[in-house]
């Protein structure tokens, strides 16, 4: 399930949704979830608000593609990816990724792959409000490096 929304999400309800999945009648031995939150600092500045823009249509397409790639690489159920857009405050939840598998290794790896690819391929942009006004957040080299370690030769 892929969702781009302004509303908050309920981690407990999403967990129930993952384990109730009827795709696998045998059930899952491992569920890994990642929640990204709005920090109240960035590059030594206090951040008082965050605004998220995205490219409607392309965003959902990219999230579906990376979901499919994860399912081809690891024996996992259909992942749940939720990303919020619009105006957020420090401490708010931004992104949710939930992955279930028979064993933990595949679920851990697929979850990390999904967040690494989301951060470098999905068209979202953050704008932060700091003491001296609004700033667009710069892309980080470390995020590119994290994503590149999942590259395959095919």
């Amino acid at each position, binding site marked *: 399930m892929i969702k781009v929304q302004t509303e908050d999400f309920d981690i407990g309800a999403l967990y129930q949704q993952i384990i109730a999945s009827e795709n696998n009648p045998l059930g899952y031995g491992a569920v890994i979830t990642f929640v990204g939150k709005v920090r109240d600092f960035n590059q030594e500045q206090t951040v008082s608000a965050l605004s998220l823009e995205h490219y409607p249509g*392309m965003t959902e*397409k990219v999230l579906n593609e990376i979901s499919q790639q994860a399912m081809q690489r690891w024996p996992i159920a259909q992942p749940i990816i939720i990303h919020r857009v619009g105006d957020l405050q420090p401490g708010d939840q*931004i992104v949710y990724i939930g992955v279930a598998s028979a064993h933990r290794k595949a679920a851990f790896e697929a979850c990390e792959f999904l*967040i690494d690819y*989301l951060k470098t391929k999905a*068209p979202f*942009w953050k704008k932060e409000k700091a003491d001296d006004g609004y700033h667009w957040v710069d*892309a980080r080299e470390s995020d590119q490096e994290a994503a590149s370690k999942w590259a395959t030769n095919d």
Partner: protein
Amino acid sequence: MLSIVFFAQTREIIGQGEFSLPFKPEFSSLEAIRSHLASTNDKWDLALTREKLIIAVNQEMSPWDTEIKDGDEVAFFPPVTGG
């Protein structure tokens, strides 16, 4: 007709999010489209500096040598920062 779209800083500096550009044969090259748009004025030139600009053609990130056809949607934006 080409559909040209901008996001984030690129959109903000340019001052608009989307517009239509009549297709011409030379616009089969992304660099020709970029330099045509950049020649509008200094702000557009700044917003469309080639370094660090990402392009999506029909909502897919694409290299600069992608061939553009009439009817395509071409997006210009800075590196993404979601998650």
